């Protein structure tokens, strides 16, 4: 019998620690699939960020270096410049990348570092208990925006994929979601495309993934999934915002 579906080689055969309904497991799988596609597992160095995703070395069977909060793009810069033959990606949440690490992501992208950035946007700080993030939607209640995010006071949610597309050093920038089988399949295609840019030495690639945090959103997994389509996608449109030809 032909095997048509299996665990990617780049993923370890272990259970994840993530909360029920969390999408990190799905996104890990998409990243591993892209690594497998280009056969780069053996020369990949992953950069783990601070937050729920810090444990990625427990799930990916690759070499990993841990970065301080927000600094993953700078760490990845050092790794890639020192070892240009390695395949380097960062995996960062919205608090990490769009708040404390804004300078690092913008400048690594602008320098056109030949790395791939996976940006997991669930509109909240997950590990620290659901505080307001730079991507928290206007009106969204969090543990530090108990009255709902107020645009006049807290500003607007940052659209990172669009922002990245404006920078000269960026070769590829896209936003996907993982709330439905259709979107997951689209995300798989985009993730492969983004990793392909680095695999072919074409420069900086960026994938924003809209995902759920049922625990901190105070929703069951199904409701949380639904929220991505109902509230997040209307503000954070899906699509490829930049795709530089080789």
């Amino acid at each position, binding site marked *: 019998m032909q095997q048509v579906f299996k665990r990617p080689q780049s993923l370890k055969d272990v259970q994840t620690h993530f909360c029920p309904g969390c999408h990190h497991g799905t996104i890990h799988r998409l990243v591993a699939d892209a690594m497998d596609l280009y056969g780069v597992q053996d020369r*990949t160095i992953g950069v*783990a960020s601070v937050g729920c995703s810090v444990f990625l070395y427990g799930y990916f069977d690759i070499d990993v270096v841990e970065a301080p909060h927000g600094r993953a793009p*700078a*760490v990845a810069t050092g790794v890639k410049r020192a070892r240009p033959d390695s395949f380097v990606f960062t995996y960062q949440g919205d608090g990490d990348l769009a708040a404390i690490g804004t300078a690092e992501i913008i400048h690594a992208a602008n320098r056109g570092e030949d790395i791939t950035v996976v940006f997991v946007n669930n509109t909240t700080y997950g590990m620290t208990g659901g505080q307001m993030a730079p991507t928290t939607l206007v009106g969204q209640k969090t543990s530090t925006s108990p009255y709902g995010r107020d645009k006049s006071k807290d500003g607007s949610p940052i659209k990172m994929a669009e922002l990245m597309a404006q920078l000269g050093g960026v070769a590829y920038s896209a936003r996907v979601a993982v709330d439905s089988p259709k979107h997951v399949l689209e995300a798989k295609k985009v993730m492969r495309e983004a990793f392909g840019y680095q695999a072919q030495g074409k420069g900086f690639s960026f994938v924003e993934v809209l995902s759920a945090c049922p625990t901190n959103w105070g929703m069951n997994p199904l409701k949380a999934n639904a929220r991505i389509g109902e509230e997040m996608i209307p503000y954070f449109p899906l699509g490829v915002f930049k795709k530089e030809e080789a």
Partner: protein
Amino acid sequence: MSKRLFVKGNEAAAMGAVEAGCRYYFGYPITPQSDIPEYLSRELPPLNGEFIQAESEIGAINMLLGASATGVRAMTSSSSPGISLKQEGISYMAGAELPGVIINISRSGPGLGGIDASQSDYFQCVKGGGHGGYHIPVLAPNSVQEMYDLTMHAFDLADLYRTPVMLLGDSVIGQMKEALIPNPRPVRELPAKGWAVRGKSGAEQRVVKSLFLGDGELEAHNWHLHAKYQVMKEKECMSEEYETADARLIVAGFGSVSRIAHTAVTMARAEGMKVGLFRPVTLFPFPEQALAQTAARAGKVLVVELNTGQMVEDVRLSVGAAAQVSFYGRPPGAGSLPSPEELLEVIRKNYDETAR
């Protein structure tokens, strides 16, 4: 025959780094150390190295973290306010046991302060600086020659102990020009970097991290780091003595002020006073034993610093009750370097008190 060059201290450090095999530099401009990135931006690319002017000191130290994690020799440099920003990364590197060299041509503070010579960051550099209770070796050159030699030594210490190492100078040491003989790097057996991330290539996964959440894991890691610091204290202390054999008063100072003190001690000797100089070259590990012995013999130590009293605490801890310790300091401020005559006067006062 060795050639003799006439260069600035900052250039000498950059040259020492290149001689030590450093090919990766990440930095951000700040006075009075910008000659270092300027020199390396010119010299590294032809050596197939990389120079990156980072977006900030934070970016630079984390690029160093990433490069060092792959096993290459890499460095950054900055000055006091920039070092404050780098402390987060230094703490992470200490926690993850990553080598790397950080040159700090310190300036005066607090805050923006000024660019004149100062030793007011002794506590920050020697006592950890960042969070988490770690130490890093801190080397304090007092000449252009030492900027070169100790930079090479710093890279070896970093690899030997898997730790960030700081070279602590100031604007006097960094900006002055004097003779330099480019010595070859001392040969020292260094461990292989089997821990470095390079991509698995069929081997076991390697992870460079400072997060230890398992039961007792972090405590064990901290005891491991502590043990490493004890080995450094035993094996890596460096100090210099001048005219201490029969001295009844020891003047203690590091870095730039030690040169002024050296002149003052020579002047005191000419007046018949039995005065000597003790100069710590490593500030961590602090040369406790050597100082304690010399101090006990003399009975009195006068600590001189370009601050209001920081290293004097380590001197007191080192000598205990074996000698009396007094202090003379000048906090930072334009023109506040003490002259040799000024220190001679302080020596006279303290020496007379000894005689009584």
